């Protein structure tokens, strides 16, 4: 098990190097001069030259990349923001709590709504509830988050005046963005729970349990659910990883200063170190969540645990 974890983490290294290279190349190709953006339109030629030298932007592309990797590996230094002059890591960690909070709220909402809906759908397959739940799940999957966000604002902030349309400091302010963000996850969890439950219910051991004369509720709750939940747990984990990294649109509609908005703002401001560091951070977070999910998966499913040995 430990060896597996170590191997997975070691595997991250080339992936991260690749991510860094990708981002470096993209930024290199992006029009717009960071020196001009940072120093302002009226900056003197000398100041711009000095900035380029200080930040190593005058060096050839591969040299810049090698330098970045060297510093990151030897000193754990991923640079300072051009704009705020603070270490990139501080910038990211300042924005991360908002994103984490948003993702956590969203996944909790998704599980609270999605799981029971999926279970009920499966138990009462082909019922009106089942059909309705499946159609709603499909609609949830198809709803663009930016439109859903606007509709939620229109309903709950403009007409009903129940919830604020922006911000994230208070509990109330978190509700709308989390709801908007969770729509996709709710749908996916509902669908996954349903199909996984259906598969399990048809399995032989359930039939055995039933034929032994177990009460239906015991069959469902004790036997079916526990086994059906295994893939659902995986999905929740994967969704959480996605939410952590993919809340850009939600953050921009609801004015939440999270990692997604930091990234977009930094791309616009040509704050290269923050973009690079941010994408790396997101990639690491995403990969670690995935690793964690795999481990959880192994933990709750003995069949898989055996494979890691």
């Amino acid at each position, binding site marked *: 098990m430990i060896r597996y974890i170590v191997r997975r983490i070691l595997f991250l290294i*080339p*992936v991260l190097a*690749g*991510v860094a*290279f*990708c*981002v470096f190349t*993209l*930024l290199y*190709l*992006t*029009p717009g001069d960071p020196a001009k953006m940072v120093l302002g339109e009226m900056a003197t030629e000398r100041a711009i030259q000095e900035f380029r030298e200080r930040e190593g932007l005058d060096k050839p592309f591969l040299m810049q990349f090698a330098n970045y990797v060297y510093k990151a590996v030897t000193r754990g230094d991923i640079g300072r923001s051009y704009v705020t002059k603070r270490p990139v890591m501080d910038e990211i960690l300042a924005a991360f709590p908002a994103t984490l909070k948003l993702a956590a709220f969203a996944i909790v909402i998704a599980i609270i709504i999605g799981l029971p809906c999926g279970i009920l759908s499966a138990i009462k397959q082909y019922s009106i509830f089942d059909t309705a739940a499946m*159609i709603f799940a*499909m*609609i949830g*999957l*198809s*709803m*663009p*988050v*930016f*439109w859903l966000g*606007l*509709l939620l*604002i*229109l309903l709950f902030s*403009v007409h009903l005046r129940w919830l604020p349309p922006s911000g994230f400091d208070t509990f109330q302010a978190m509700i709308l963005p989390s709801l908007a963000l969770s729509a996709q996850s709710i749908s996916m969890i509902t669908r996954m729970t349903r199909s996984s439950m259906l598969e399990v219910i048809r399995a032989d051991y359930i039939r055995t349990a039933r034929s032994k004369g177990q009460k239906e509720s015991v069959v469902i709750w004790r036997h079916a659910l526990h086994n059906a939940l295994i893939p659902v747990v995986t999905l929740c984990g994967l969704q959480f990883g*996605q939410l952590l*990294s*993919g809340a*850009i*649109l939600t953050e*921009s509609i609801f004015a939440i200063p999270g990692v*997604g908005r930091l*990234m*977009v703002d930094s*791309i*616009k401001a040509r704050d290269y170190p923050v*973009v690079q560091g941010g*994408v790396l951070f*997101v*990639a690491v977070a*995403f*990969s670690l969540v995935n690793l964690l999910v795999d481990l959880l998966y192994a933990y709750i499913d003995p069949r898989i645990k055996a494979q890691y040995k």
Partner: protein
Amino acid sequence: MDAPVLKSNKKRGALMEVLFRLKKSPLAMFGFFFIIFLAFTAIFADVLAPHPYQRQNLSHAFETPSKQFLLGTDEFGRDILSRLIYGARVSLQVGFIAVGIALFAGGMLGAAAGYYGGWADNAIMRVMDVMLSIPQTLLAIAIAAALGPGLFNLMIAVGISAVPNYARIVRGSVLSLREMEFIEAARAVGSSDLRIITKHIIPNSMAPIIVQSTLGVASAILNAAGLSFIGLGIQPPYPEWGAMLSGGRQYIRDYPHLTLYPGLAIMLTILALNFLGDGLRDALDPKLKR
């Protein structure tokens, strides 16, 4: 040498079979016909649209639906219905071409990785891992920023960011097919690699690819609308649903119809594609018959 399910010389039969199974799911049929309808709208937009999409009439701005303007007008007095109709053209173009790009690049890479295995597989899939660990929206934003705005660049940005999905799926199905007997048989009679890939492997891994592509068109359209929403999409005055939504959101309290219709258009299209994709998955997978 006989392949299961979808063999090329039995293509028509297989296609009919799929359609037949699809017919059993009303939702999938809804999706199917909606997409056909949309494609029709997009192709004949010039004939169908009651007004030119860019025609401004500032004295008619913000009109609610009427006989003259069936879905009302936007902030420039442009006919929303006409813009939606032309918008279908943009969205379908972006959706299908982006998926085409992703499918072509991803399919080639995936097939090569799966077929040759070894270091080629390793190298290709590690690159895909790299792309996968950057969130797709962020990747698309970065590519769009690098390329600049415009329809074509939008397709490329959305397409490239979806490449790894297809590479993975194609590789997966190629891996499972590679060891099958009919492939070995083909190899034994001396077929070239290219022939084996194009004649045997690709046709036989079609099912998951078709499903993924259908769902992929949906997510490409959604992705493109998202990019347009944050201003990295198509240039005005050309109508794109995401851009229409973004442009009207300032007026959402007074004139919600500016955002309502484009939002509905996006949602219905995605919904239709998802229904169709789901239906196709069931229809193409003999195990999952309901």
